[in-house]
């Protein structure tokens, strides 16, 4: 029960935060929540299942563009775009999972970089569908209504922040359940020793594909939330820099520890805010931190702490 209670407490604190914080800070917190979802999503496939991916930014973009294009062409509201973004990104996750059935390690990483690049090129060049470099703009999120009665206004920053928080809580809860279900332990088994996993009867194909789908779907949800928050999408919001940042969050915090990537995301999103003018060099700092972490502490901060505790 303890992890649920801690999660609930943190969520409550975040829920009252906009009452004390200004608009800018609330926006930063919202951005932090997007990255928490992305980092936890990446942790499922790369941390738990051991299938390294540099394509988080692509799935994030696929979710965001699904929301933007559906709003533009169908006028669909956010509550419809959310599952749609998850499904579209999840399907592409399945697609990327297929080469992962044959490739391992560095070779798989290269394929995920290629996938990221292809998605970027398609969304930036297919002008008639995606708006090219200009992107697609979205209207203010429509209020959530049922039978003509307005339930929740989403137009204000605060209400949209709460929606983001609620969706993030649901995403984390799902990811937590996945990681701690039978499927999650099969992912760990595949990461530890794929041949052995198959030898004890684990369907490694199913394991890998589900990890890719789950990871991509979470990134897709983050994408939908971001698209509506920004009132628009452009290709440059979803480059490999996003993927690299999310990888840094996961590795710094600790792969396969669940809480580690969350803390990594919180740290790397909030850090540029306290750096002031130095924030211009944030990619340089992220990169240095990543190199340091991989050299000195490959299991990440939380991984290291857990190993200490286990001794």
């Amino acid at each position, binding site marked *: 029960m303890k992890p649920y209670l801690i999660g609930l407490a943190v969520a409550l604190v975040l829920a009252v935060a906009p009452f004390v914080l200004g608009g800018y800070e609330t926006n930063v917190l919202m951005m932090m929540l997007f990255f928490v979802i992305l980092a936890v999503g990446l942790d499922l496939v790369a941390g738990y299942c051991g299938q390294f991916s540099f394509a988080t930014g692509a799935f994030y973009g696929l979710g965001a563009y699904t929301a933007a294009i559906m709003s533009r062409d169908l006028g669909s509201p956010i509550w419809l775009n959310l599952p749609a973004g998850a499904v579209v990104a999840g399907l592409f996750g399945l697609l990327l999972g297929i080469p992962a059935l044959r490739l391992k390690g560095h070779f798989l990483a290269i394929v995920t970089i290629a996938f990221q690049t292809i998605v970027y090129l398609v969304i930036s060049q297919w002008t008639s569908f995606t708006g090219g470099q200009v992107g697609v703009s979205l209207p203010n999120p429509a209020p959530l209504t049922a039978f003509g009665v307005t339930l929740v206004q989403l137009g204000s920053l605060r209400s949209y922040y709460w929606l983001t928080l609620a969706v993030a809580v649901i995403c984390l809860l799902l990811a937590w359940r996945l990681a701690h279900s*039978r499927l999650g*332990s099969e992912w760990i088994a595949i990461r530890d020793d794929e041949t052995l996993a198959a030898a004890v009867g684990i369907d490694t194909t199913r394991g890998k594909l589900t990890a890719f789908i789950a990871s991509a779907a979470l990134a897709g949800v983050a994408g939908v939330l971001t698209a509506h928050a920004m009132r628009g999408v452009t290709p440059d919001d979803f480059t490999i820099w996003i993927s690299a940042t999310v990888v840094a969050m996961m590795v710094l915090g600790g792969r396969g520890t669940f809480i580690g990537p969350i803390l990594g995301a919180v740290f790397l999103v909030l850090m540029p805010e306290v750096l002031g003018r130095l924030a211009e060099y944030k990619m340089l700092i992220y990169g240095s931190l990543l190199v340091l972490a991989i050299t000195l502490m490959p299991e990440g901060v939380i991984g290291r702490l857990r190993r200490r505790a286990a001794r």
Partner: protein
Amino acid sequence: MSKIIEAKGITKRFGGVVAVNAVDLSVEKGQIVGLIGPNGSGKSTMVNLVTGELLADEGGLLFNGHDISRMPLYKRARLGMARSFQMLRLFHSLSVEENLVLASHMRMTTSVVDSLFGRAAAREETERARAKARELLAWFDLQEFAERPVTAMSIGQQRMVEIARGLMSEPTLLVLDEPAAGLSPPNVDKLIVLIRRLRDEFGISILLVEHVMRVVRDLCDRVVVLDSGQKIAEGVPDVVVKDPVVVEAYIGSGWKRRAQA
């Protein structure tokens, strides 16, 4: 007697090298069959062909009467085949108990979705698997290690965990790949008793690859001898080890003949 596993004319080539050449091998129900031969004779390849890590280039493979020659590893495991590895293989980031529980996932009747939503039936099933894992660990006198990482155990203990893992899925055939390797002589005695009990108490048929002759002579109902990928002898252990062809393969002019080739 019905055959648990029956390989007919199994051939495996790696590039130009014929690692296993038209070998017939069978294990009858309730038997312990030994697979022996000098280093590089193709024993490990043969084992990997039986368990499905490798697929044969030629030949047929029947398991309880099912053709499994093109069947992937995990499906063979689900049909009732379990194995241990020459080089110890366990999931290193998991506890001993979790290692065992994973081996029974394939026997679980509740779905992964039930487990995802924490449904009572799935939780009970996992609990039952845990209880069974503890029971098995107690049988091996390793119960105090249940919650510890596998790396906390000695090589000999890890080998026992590998065998316990094999028992978790209630297999009909257990393939043991050099279980005595790296064990001290007293532990080898224990291993011999243990393997016999696996057959007598659990009714499991066993294919045993082994270098330690004492284990083979004490346990095996029948042995198959490989040399350079060919079957050179088959029969009762005491007779086979005196067979001049076998003696030659092990210590005689066998290596000289190969050096000339």
